Every structure is written in structure tokens, then in C-alpha cells.
């Protein structure tokens, strides 16, 4: 019995050794800071940082960028949350900024400042200021984010016209800018002026393939945001080279066939009253035409929709003739938009972001192999023809 006892004690102590280290990876959720938005700006040290540095709290770094993290929820003391069940005073989030040259190191610096470590599982939106992307390529900026095992590749990437910090701020009480931005991006189904959402995963794919691409733009004024236009990034350098405005983006959406919902406004004869067309569906077909060594493209766009608004005074009845006139007018407006965007693509910026290369790759892979090296340049010389046909199916609830 005693021999058995001894064995048992030895075994037990051995087992205890195993468990003395405790539960290794458990960290209670309320002890964590969840950040839902990330912003990257040109380097500008905040006042806090400057005074810390003055007090000797600096570490060797180059000030390449300033990063903003949006932490939610803002932890209020317990009595407050019990009293105010309705509107919460103040902001529901907290924006923190730090400057440095290594994203990872900067994040770990946050650990020196807050009692709750940051976790990136719930990151929803990454906003990059276009100023910063003039200097550094997107690939450099997003490298850490792509490597991190916390951050999910489903986060959306947006570009801000001003600073990312502004884009991630909001004066509306209770609103969390990151969620708001994500929500607006989801609105792309309501309008053809917004690009379809670009997640990290898709962005990585586009960047790796070397093609030029677009990112949605956010403009901030008076504390409110608007999604307007897109920023163009050159495939080789992945740096910012220009932007499209709303009209050009519209035109682009017609070429790519993304215009599934939205409004087209035009001024109809005889006296230029406003008419609006609601898009119900669009089909766009890009056909590459190869003749010997010459490549050209033809775009065929067909769309169906409704006549939604007619400012004619007195009201012009919707006869067939009138509808056909309007169809032609709308088509002309669309052609105008396309012409504008093609001009910008081929002449001003010399990039190709509308999916022409994709179609060439699919239809004529051998030709694509030859030209894909300098595709942006090559494309600027390629003639593109297009024709647009609209079909106004009905005029909504009023037949007039």
C-alpha cells in the first residue's frame, strides 16, 4: 500500500506541474479593446505624442505614418450606463492615434498606453489617406494587415480624400464611423455611383496580379461624410495616381455592367426639363476584336428600367414617340459619361481599370500573354467603340 501511495504521489505532482501554468490563452472578452476601424495618414504627431517625446518617452523610429484605431465601445462608468438607457451622451467610440514606421510596433505601443490589449478580429474598415498612398505603395502599407492572423480578409478598404482620422470621426452621437462607412458601402446596390465593396481579400488578389485598380473614395466635410468618386492606383507601383469623379465612376459602371441600380438624369428636349431614369438591370458585353496585331474593343450596353421622374411642364404624355426620344436622350447622357471616363483612362492617367484586360485574357489568352506586361500603356492606344441601348419598360405608378 505504501509503495502504491508513493507512486501515486509522484504521478500527482507531475500532473500538477503540467497545470501550474494555468489557462494559457484565455483572456476575458471585457478585458480586450476591440478596434473596428483603422486609419493610415501621413505622419503628424499628435499633441500627446509630442509631449511624451519631450518627456523622454520616445523610441527610435521614422515618422512615416500616423495610424488611427477606432476602439469600441467606449467604456463608461457603470452608473452612467444604468441611468441613460436612451441617448448616450458623447461618442460611442474612441479614436487613438500613434505615429511611427512599423505598424506592428505601433500597435504594441498601444499596449503601453491602454490597460486592454488591442484585438483586430472585428476590424471592419481600413481607411487610407490618398496623400499617404502617393508616397508609399498600398502593398507596403497593407503588408502587416495581410499577415496578421487576427485581422480578417473581409475588412473593407477605402481611401479618404482628406485625412483618415477625419473620415473616422463623427459628430453624430451614438454613431460609430466604422460601422457607418461599412453600411454606406453596402448601399452600393442602391446606386451606381459607388464601387462594389473591395475587401482585403479581393484587393490582395488585384495587387498581386499587377493590374491597376480602383478604391472607393470618402470625402469629409463639416463632420459628415460622402462617398464620391474613386481613386486610381497604378498596377506596377500600387501608388495613387489620380481619381475619378462621380460622373466618371458612373460611366465606368456602365462599362463594367455594375450599374444594376441607380438613377440617370438627363435634360430632355424641347426645353431641357429634367427627366430621370431608374435602372432596373443592365447587361454589358466587352468584346475584344483581334485583327492581326491590332486589338480593339467593342462595348455593347443594354439596359432596362423605368422612367421615374419627369419635370415637363405642362406634362407631356408618355407616348411611344416621347419614350423613344427619352431613350435616345438617356443613351446619349450615358455615352457622354463613358466618353469622359474613357478619356481619363486612356489619356489622362493611362491606366485600365474597367475590365478590358480581363476579357482579353479570357477570350484570347495567347494574345494576352504577349501584351500583359505593359497593358496600361498598350491600352491607351487601343480604340474602343461602344453603343448603348436603353429600354424604358414602364413609367412607374403613374401612366402619364
Amino acid at each position, binding site marked *: 500500500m505504501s509503495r502504491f501511495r508513493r507512486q501515486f504521489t509522484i504521478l500527482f505532482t507531475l500532473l500538477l506541474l503540467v497545470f501550474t501554468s494555468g489557462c*494559457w490563452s484565455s483572456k476575458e472578452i471585457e478585458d480586450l479593446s476591440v478596434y473596428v476601424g483603422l486609419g493610415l495618414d501621413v505622419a503628424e504627431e499628435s499633441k500627446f505624442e509630442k509631449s511624451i517625446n519631450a518627456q523622454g518617452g520616445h523610441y527610435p523610429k521614422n515618422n512615416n505614418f500616423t495610424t488611427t484605431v477606432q476602439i469600441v465601445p467606449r467604456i463608461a462608468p457603470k452608473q452612467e450606463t444604468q441611468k441613460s438607457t436612451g441617448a448616450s451622451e458623447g461618442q460611442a467610440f474612441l479614436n487613438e492615434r500613434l505615429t511611427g514606421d512599423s505598424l506592428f510596433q505601433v500597435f504594441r505601443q498601444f499596449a503601453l498606453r491602454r490597460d486592454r490589449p488591442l484585438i483586430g478580429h472585428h476590424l471592419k474598415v481600413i481607411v487610407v489617406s490618398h496623400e499617404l498612398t502617393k508616397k508609399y505603395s498600398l502593398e507596403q502599407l497593407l503588408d502587416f494587415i495581410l499577415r496578421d492572423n487576427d485581422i480578417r480578409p473581409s475588412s473593407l478598404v477605402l481611401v479618404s480624400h482628406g485625412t483618415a482620422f477625419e473620415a473616422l470621426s463623427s459628430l453624430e452621437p451614438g454613431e460609430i464611423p466604422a460601422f457607418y462607412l461599412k453600411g454606406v458601402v453596402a448601399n452600393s446596390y442602391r446606386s451606381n455611383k459607388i464601387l462594389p465593396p473591395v475587401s482585403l*481579400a479581393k484587393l490582395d488578389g488585384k495587387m498581386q*496580379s499587377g493590374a491597376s485598380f480602383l478604391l472607393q473614395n470618402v470625402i469629409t466635410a463639416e463632420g459628415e461624410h460622402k462617398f464620391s468618386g474613386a481613386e486610381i492606383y497604378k498596377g506596377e507601383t500600387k501608388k495613387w495616381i489620380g481619381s475619378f469623379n462621380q460622373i466618371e465612376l458612373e460611366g465606368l459602371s456602365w462599362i463594367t455592367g455594375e450599374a444594376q441600380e441607380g438613377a440617370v438624369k438627363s435634360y430632355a428636349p424641347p426645353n431641357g426639363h429634367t427627366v430621370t431614369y431608374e435602372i432596373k438591370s443592365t447587361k454589358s458585353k466587352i468584346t475584344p476584336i483581334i485583327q492581326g496585331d491590332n486589338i480593339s474593343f467593342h462595348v455593347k450596353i443594354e439596359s432596362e428600367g423605368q422612367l421615374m421622374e419627369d419635370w415637363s411642364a405642362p406634362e407631356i404624355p408618355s407616348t411611344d414617340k416621347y419614350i423613344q426620344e427619352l431613350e435616345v436622350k438617356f443613351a446619349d447622357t450615358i455615352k457622354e459619361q463613358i466618353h469622359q471616363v474613357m478619356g481619363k483612362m486612356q489619356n489622362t492617367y493611362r491606366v485600365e481599370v474597367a475590365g478590358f484586360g480581363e476579357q482579353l485574357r479570357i477570350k484570347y489568352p495567347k494574345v494576352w500573354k504577349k501584351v500583359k506586361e505593359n497593358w496600361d500603356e498598350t491600352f491607351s492606344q487601343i480604340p474602343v467603340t461602344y453603343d448603348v441601348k436603353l429600354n424604358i419598360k414602364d413609367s412607374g405608378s403613374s401612366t402619364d
Partner: protein
Amino acid sequence: MNRKQDQLTTVQAAAFIINYMLGAGILTLPRTTVTAAGTPDVWISILLSGLLVMLMGIILVTLCRRFPGKTVFQFTEEITGKWIAYVLGVIIIAYFLTISAFEIRVMADVTGLYLLEGTPVWAIVMVFMWIGFYLISGGVNSMARLYEIILPITLILFVLAIFLSSDLFEINNLRPVLGEGIMPVIKGLKPTTLAYTGYEIMFIVMAFMRNPEKGKKAMVWGILIPMGIYFITLVMVIGSLSIEGMKTRTWPTLDLMRSFEIEGLVFERFESLLLVIWIMQIFSTFTITHYAASLGCSQLFKKKMLPFMIILLPIIYIIAMIPENANDTFKLGDAVGYVSIYLFGIGPLLLLLLSMIRKKGGKYN
């Protein structure tokens, strides 16, 4: 002991093969194949190599049918004589051990990366191996039942999870089909064939089957279903992430699951689903190879199996800890795959011919 109902049914044998095949490979398959082939046509490669493996599998089954009731360790002796059989047996045991270790290592890496960051590797691996030991000490019948339980869960959840990502799917990423000709498909055959390592378990399973004449059916089904799974995986991953986006991701299938969120559905994030079934699949692969290695040792050295099961545990662990970084691990996996092709692709053919020439073993009735 050998009552009729204690032996494996055909479905159970197929379950063995399926569970063994689906393992660590699923997560890296898209990347390895696309890196070799360069085009999105690898889905054709996977179908072709599936058929090729079926052929090799049928040869294997025919060989086993000539020696009913005996595992490979027992009948090679009849074909080739004692010493060669001994060497062959030891090689096969070492092969199974290495696969066990490889699977454990990959599981520990992925779990440590995505699920449990602070937990030391040994804690993750040890509890896994102990539970595996508990299972296989119950014998091949208990194992078969467990695999039959795990299999439908895995299949349903996997297909569900993959199809939830169909939002991200763009058919253009898969086109053009055969854009660069048939060469990429041929180049893709090598890594895809490596994904089918698993059919060799029939060397051991056939001896326990209740109806060995249905072995061919079990083999065919056992390869068809993983073929389907691999096909769906490749198509969805490439279609959603595009081959460029995928080349730089270490675990593309997992990243596919992390690339979307469906708000409103109970779990917003579905990589937990994939990780859960993947861990269960690794468990089954590990237990099958562990059992095969212990069985081999016990049949080669003519001793009881239980001590071997225990002794092999630390050996597997040490082999699993040998690769120092992720690249080494993948190299180990590739090396094992090559060995498998020679050992179990060409080997059974040779053995079959030899057995026919030397007239060993009966023709199946």
C-alpha cells in the same frame, strides 16, 4: 473474436479511406497546385489524378484479394520472402509514423495560429494524442464507428460552409479554361496526386472487411468522395480569391472562410465551422496512421499491439517536432507524398506481378 458482425462493412471501409485522405491537405491544396500549374485549370488536374489514383487503388485491392484476411505486413512475406518483407514492412511503418507526425504538426500550427495563441504546442498535441490513443485501444471496430459518425458531419458542414462563400465567387477567375493548353494540367498532376494519399490504408482495412469482394466498391467510393470535396474546394477558392490572391496566402481555404461575413446568420464568421471539422478530420487521419503503424509493428514483431501503441506515441511526437519552421514542415509533407507514390503506386503493381508469377496467394472467389 471474429464474429461475422464484428468485421467492417463496405461503407466503413470507404469511411476509413475518406477520413484518411481528407486531412491537412485540404488547407494547402489550392496553393500547391496553382503554384505548380500557374493557371486556374487545376480542377481538371484533380479530376484526372483522381482517376489515376483509382486505377492504382484497384491494383492494390486486387493484390489484397489474393490474400484474404491478411494485412500487407503478413502477406508480403509470402510473396517476397522474409527479409525483403521485413524491410518493406519497416519502411511502411516509418511512412505511417511520418504521416502521423506531419498531420499533428500541421494541426498544432494552425490551431496555434488561429485558435489558441498562447497555448504551448505540447499542451495542444498531448491531449490530442491521448484521446487518439484512447480511441484506437478500442480496436478497429470502434474506430470505424467513430469515422462513420464524423463523416456525415464533416461533409455536410464543409459543403455548407464552402457554399456560404458563393457571394465572393467570380466565374471569371476560373476562365479561360485550358487557356494555356494542356501543359499546366499535366504540371498540376503531381501536387494533386499527392493529395490523394490515403488509399493505401486498404492494405490493412481489407483484412478486416466482412465482404472483401466489395473491396473495389469501397475503394472507388473512398476516392470519389474526396475527389468531389477537393474539386469543390479548388473551384470555390480559386473562383473567389483568384490565383494571384491565393499564391501568397499560407492557408488559402481557411482564408476563403475568413473573407466573408454574413451578418444576421447566427455565426457571422464561419471559419470556426471549418476549423472544427478540419480538426476532426486530422484526428481521424492521425488515429488511422497511428493504428496502422502499431498494427504493423505488432504483426512484424509478433507481439501484442497495446505496448506498441504506447511506445509509438513519443516517437511520433519527436518526429513532429523536428521541422523547425513552416517551410520545413511543408517540405516534410512533400517528401512523404513522393514516398507514397513510389511505395504505394508502383509497389502494389510489382507485388501483384510477383505474386502472379510466383503463384502465391489464391485467386479471389
